[in-house]
């Protein structure tokens, strides 16, 4: 295997494109993470402290609690899908551009 090119890592992370990637990704990930965790904990907390609400029947014998638990599944899938779409269309492209430049040894202006 050929020796890997020497890369100036400080130059990579101060590259404006990397800064853009970092900023967009960090905000997006933190937001999704906080939303998912808070939404998840609403379920056990609701089941413990809002039993009257969970009990209300909405569709035959199906109550709010059951629907809410099912929603947790849907929301988890939607978050996963939403993240992978944004990452696939935006983050990957930026990351590939940066990686290609620096792996070839070309330092962007």
């Amino acid at each position, binding site marked *: 295997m050929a020796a890997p090119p020497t890369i100036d*890592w400080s130059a990579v992370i101060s590259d404006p494109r990397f800064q853009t*990637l970092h900023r967009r990704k960090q905000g997006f990930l933190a937001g999704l993470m906080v939303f998912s965790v808070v939404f998840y904990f609403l379920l056990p907390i609701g089941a413990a402290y809002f039993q009257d609400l969970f009990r209300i029947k909405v569709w035959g014998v199906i109550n709010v609690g059951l629907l809410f638990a099912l929603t947790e599944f849907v929301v988890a899938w939607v978050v996963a899908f939403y993240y*992978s779409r944004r990452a696939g269309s935006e983050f990957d492209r930026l990351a590939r551009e940066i990686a290609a430049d620096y792996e070839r040894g070309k330092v962007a202006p």
Partner: protein
Amino acid sequence: MTVQHRKALAWGLVGLVPLVCTTACAQGAVIPEYRWLTFTVFAAIIALTMYVTYVAAKRVKSASDFYTAGGGVTGLQNGWAIAGDYLSAASFLGIAGLISQYGYDGFMYSVGWLVAYITVLLVIAEPCRNIGRYTLADILAYRNNPKAMRIVGALSVITVSTFYLTAQMVGGGVLVKTLIGIDYEVSVIAVGVLMLAYVLFGGMVATTWVQIIKAVLLVIASLVLVILVWSPYGFSLPAFLQDVVSDPKVQARVATLIGDPAKTMTPAELGQRFLEPGLYFKAPIDQVSLGMALVFGTAGLPHILMRFFTVPTAQQARKSVVWAMAIIGGFYVLTLFLGFGAARFVGPAAIAAVDAGGNMAAPLLAQYLGGGTGSFPGNFMLAFVSAVAFATIVAVVAGLVLAAASAIAHDLYVGVYHGGDTVPPRQQVRAARIATVVVGAMAITIGIAAKGQNVAHLVALAFAVAASANFPCVLLTLYWKRCSTGGIVAGMIVGTVVAVGLTLVSPNVTYPKAVRAASQKVLDGEADRRSAIEQALLSTDSRVLEKARVDLTTLDKAVTRAKDDMARVEGQERSFLGLEEPVFELKNPGIISIPVGFLAVLFGSLLFRDRRSEELWPEVYARQNTGILASKASAH
């Protein structure tokens, strides 16, 4: 090892099955007339996985092949393998059982197991693929002191894997015994030997395929059962649940669970209560604590982390988590039908009569749907579900043993003892195989030694340690510039010690006084219960009569258990740590130990600055985000 050797070994293992059958059979869920059928299905599945191992064994030449299948697994394959690695018998049989016994709370319990993958997807999977190689310690060692990281990383991996492994071995032994009646020790050895065969010869290649096969079989089995359960209702959810709550067996179960208030409730109200929260979880904070351990612990489980090193790129790692979430989530939705279906058709009491924890819900439902205890299709379905349960245990155990073995061979032997990559590839693979045999032998020994112990809480403890030690360390080394060697060492030690320590003084440990009081209560109430049941046995109403018979069996079991418990704690006053009662009231330590673990990394890093950790930060951060040189990670 030559081809002939491998072939002979493979056939030998398949041949073990009938041998085990004729020598060690006792009473199980499968009736003796159909035991041959069960073993035929078992042998077929084992033969299939052995063939895969045989093919895989030819491909395992380097350490990279052994630990990560050479990084050549696709996202889709890895998604199925993650599902196979993750869906242990506890979730396959345990959650269906919880739903059949406690309704809504069982279903709510399953949610956390899926949400956990959001954490894995968003913050762990891709960075770990970009900078990791074989083990958890590889990630930590990138910017921190390598020797220190390999020691604490390996110790933590071994701790978490041992807790999880013990729960799987003991749970698996009990399960196989309950299902088909072979002796506990024989079951444990069978699980251990099979798992060793997969891992030893086929490394990660075989382990991956065994996990994929198991996950596919699990999903097929569940789908078939759900279609059979649900189709009579025209696939209408309200109609199905309406029938479940109208069932007298379900209503009787709710009445037993809630006690006195049931007397003023109508049968319809009792049934509806089965779909409402609160029948299983009594302490909300405990539930939140468990939820935290699940949601943050999964991302720190070494055998799950390891799966991300088997794919070539961060994109494939992402894809594999999305597939895993679809499969795992879909499976838990199917479990809703399995659990409620088992409650409706088999009945909560009949399930609990075979296994008090409800673990037999899915197998018994399969038998019922196929036509019942005496029928061929019924027993074929039971055999199939039992074989899938067996494959489940073996696949999960294989993943765990591989993770622990890689920590010993790659981190401790190659990394610490030899100080790096100077060890020739052949010797690395040999070290990995020796470590596998050691861990496998240990698993079998612990499994047999822990017979009869209540190990269910060990899985929760494994998640708690992973969430309190591994997760903060991995997360902060990836995302925090100031994170240092001192911080990681502090986080690993403090997180593990606090999680384990709190568990040792929690209600999970046996407190003789409490056991005695609970058993005494059962024995005191026995006479009244028995006379009530004897009254009912005189009834001419066949339904009352049937219920009374089930009640009688349940009572007899409870009394036997109470007497056993009394004998077990005879003459003892304190728990093994010398406590009369729990100091820490929660069953899961997560809510305390996770923040403490994070604080330990934080303070450790601020107190002990590390120049190397900070100098390498730009490299780590650039690589984890962009995947620069990811394919050449081994060149580092």
